[in-house]
C-alpha cells in the first residue's frame, strides 16, 4: 500500500523528466500534499506561494498566460473553500489553463480532524462552470490521470489523498477523462464509487456475491463531466444504484449520479457517504467504520436499494 499523495509526488517527477511545460505551486504544505519530492528534484519548477492560497490561485492564472501550465497544490479545504472564489473568478470564468490538485479529502484525512477533512469539495467544484472534476481510485490510476489532465486544455480539479490505500488497478490501467469504468460485472444492482471508496465497493461486491447478490462495480473517477451513458446503461441493466464516496452525501457523486438517473432511466438510488455532519479526529479506518464508509455500509445500502427495486417491480 502507498498513499495517493506519494503517488502524486512521484508522478510529478516522472512527468517532469519528459516534459517541461508545467510548474507546481505550493502553499507551504509540500510535505502534506506530496510535492516535497518534486520540489527537491525540480526546484526551478516549484513555486512557493506561502500560506496564502487566495493569492496563489490568482497568481496561477497569471502564470498560465506565460507559456506554462500551473499546477496549484494545497489541502482540499483551502482549495475548495478558502480560495474557491479565486478559483472561480480568476481561473474558471476567464478559462485559464490551470490545474488544481488537492490532498486531504474526507475522512481519509484522519487524525487532523474536521477542520482539514474536506467533505464538500466535489460538490463545490462541480458547481463551477468550466471546471472538470477528477478523483482517481488508486496510485496507478492517478499516475495515468495526471498527464491526461495536463493535456486537457482548461481548468481541472483533481483529488489525491492522504492515507495508505490498496491498489485497485495494475500499472497498465488506462485513464480517459469523462469515462467511468466497469470493474466488475453484475446483474442485480450497480455500485458506483469514487476514490478511496472504490476498493471498498469491490470488497462489498465480493460480500454480496456470497449472499447471492450480483453487483456491478463502476469506478467513476471523472465526476464532471460525468459518464452519463454508463450511468444510464447501468441503471437500465441492473435497475438499482448505490453511490459511494468519502464526501458529504449532499452534492457529490451521489448528487451527480442522481441528476443523471432522474433525467434518463429513473431507478432507486442509495447514497453512501458522510451524512451531512462534521466527523472527528481518528484513524481513517476507524472513522470509516463510525461514519458509515465501509464495505459493510455499502452492502447495507445495496440491500436497501434492492428492496426498493423489488417494491417498484411489484408495484409496476
Amino acid at each position: 500500500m502507498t498513499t495517493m499523495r506519494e503517488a502524486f509526488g512521484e508522478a510529478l517527477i516522472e512527468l517532469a523528466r519528459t516534459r517541461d511545460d508545467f510548474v507546481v505551486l505550493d502553499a507551504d504544505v509540500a510535505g502534506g500534499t506530496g510535492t516535497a519530492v518534486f520540489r527537491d528534484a525540480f526546484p526551478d519548477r516549484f513555486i512557493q506561494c506561502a500560506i496564502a492560497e487566495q493569492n496563489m490561485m490568482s497568481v496561477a492564472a497569471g502564470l498560465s498566460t506565460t507559456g506554462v501550465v500551473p499546477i496549484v497544490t494545497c489541502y482540499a479545504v483551502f482549495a475548495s473553500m478558502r480560495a474557491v472564489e479565486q478559483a472561480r473568478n480568476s481561473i474558471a470564468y476567464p478559462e485559464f489553463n490551470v490545474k488544481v490538485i488537492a490532498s486531504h479529502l474526507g475522512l481519509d484525512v484522519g487524525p487532523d480532524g474536521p477542520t482539514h477533512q474536506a467533505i464538500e469539495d466535489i460538490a463545490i467544484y462541480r458547481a463551477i462552470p468550466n471546471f472538470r472534476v477528477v478523483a482517481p481510485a488508486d496510485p496507478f490510476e492517478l499516475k495515468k490521470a495526471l498527464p491526461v489532465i495536463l493535456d486537457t486544455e482548461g481548468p481541472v480539479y483533481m483529488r489525491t489523498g492522504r492515507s495508505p490505500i490498496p491498489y485497485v488497478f495494475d500499472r497498465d490501467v488506462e485513464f480517459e477523462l469523462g469515462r467511468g469504468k466497469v470493474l466488475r460485472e453484475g446483474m442485480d444492482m450497480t455500485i458506483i464509487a469514487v476514490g478511496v471508496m472504490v476498493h471498498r465497493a469491490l470488497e462489498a461486491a465480493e460480500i454480496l456475491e456470497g449472499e447471492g447478490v450480483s453487483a456491478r462495480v463502476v469506478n467513476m473517477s471523472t465526476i464532471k463531466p460525468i459518464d452519463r451513458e454508463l450511468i444510464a446503461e447501468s441503471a437500465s441493466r441492473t435497475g438499482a444504484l448505490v453511490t459511494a464516496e468519502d464526501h458529504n452525501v449532499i452534492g457529490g457523486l451521489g448528487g451527480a449520479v442522481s441528476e443523471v438517473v432522474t433525467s434518463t432511466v429513473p431507478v432507486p438510488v442509495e447514497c453512501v457517504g458522510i451524512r451531512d455532519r462534521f466527523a472527528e479526529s481518528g484513524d481513517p479506518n476507524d472513522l470509516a467504520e463510525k461514519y458509515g464508509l465501509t464495505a459493510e455500509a455499502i452492502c447495507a445500502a445495496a440491500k436497501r436499494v434492492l428492496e426498493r427495486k423489488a417494491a417498484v417491480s411489484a408495484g409496476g
Partner: protein
Amino acid sequence: MSGEGRSLPEKALELRGHIITMNCHAGSGHPGGSLSAVEVVTYLFNEEMNFSPGNLDDPARDRFVLSKGHACPVLYAALAQKGFFGTEEFKMLRHVGGMLQGHPDRLKTPGVEFNSGSLGQGFSFALGCALGGKRAGRGFRVYVLLGDGELNEGQVWEGMMFGAHYRLDNLVAVVDYNKYQSDDLCSNVTALEPLAEKFTAFGWHTMEIDGHSFQEIGDAFKEARTVKGRPSVIIAHTVKGKGISFMENNPVWHGSLAPQGEERVRALRECGLEDIG
C-alpha cells in the same frame, strides 16, 4: 480613433467623454472611480506601454491589468481610443449581447487581460504574469491598477509579500487613491493609513504623486524602470469623479448609476460633447 498627434490632456478629455457616454448608454456603471483614473490610464496607454492592437498576440508585449474592475469604463475608453474596437460598442455596455461587460471579460473584449471585478484578484494575477515573464526571460512589464478600497482585501497583502519575495521589478502597481470607497470615505471604513509606510514596510519601492499630473505620472513610471530587485507601487492621489464638476468628491457617483436630464447634458458638455451619439 487612434488619437495620434493629440496631447495627453486632449486624449484624457476624450476618455472622460467616452466614460460618460457609455455610462449614459448603460444607465449604470461606476463613473466616479473611472474618472479618477483617467490620467494614469491615458499615460500608460500612450506613453508607457508597448501594447496596441497590432501586438496583442506578441508574448513579449506589456500588460495592463485593471484590478479595480468596476472602473472598466476607463479601460474600455482607452482600448477604443487605441483602436481595439469601435466606439459603437459603448451602446451595448452592460446590455445582453454586448462585448463590454459590467466588469471586464478577457474572452469577450479584445485587449482585456483578466476578468477582474472581485477585488484583489487582478493584483495577484498581475503578479503571476510578472513572475511568469521573468521565468520565461521575456522582457515585458506589467502594470496593475488598484482601487483604494480594494486594499481592504487580505489577498492584496498576500500579494504584496509575494511580489517582494520574488523581487518582481518588472511590475508597477498604481493605487487610484481617490479617498472614497463604495459606502463612505476610506478613512471611515478602515485604517488604510499610513499607506506609504505599509507598502515600504512590505518591501516595495513606494512613490506618491498627484494622479492627475502627467508630469508626476511620467516621472514615477520612469523612476520605476530604474528600480531593481523589488516591485514599485505608485500611490496616485486623485479626485473621485474628476472632471465632472458635480461628480467630484461625491460618493454617490461611485456606484451603479448614470447622470440623467440636466446633469447628463452638463456632464457631456464638460467633456466637450453635445450628446451621446
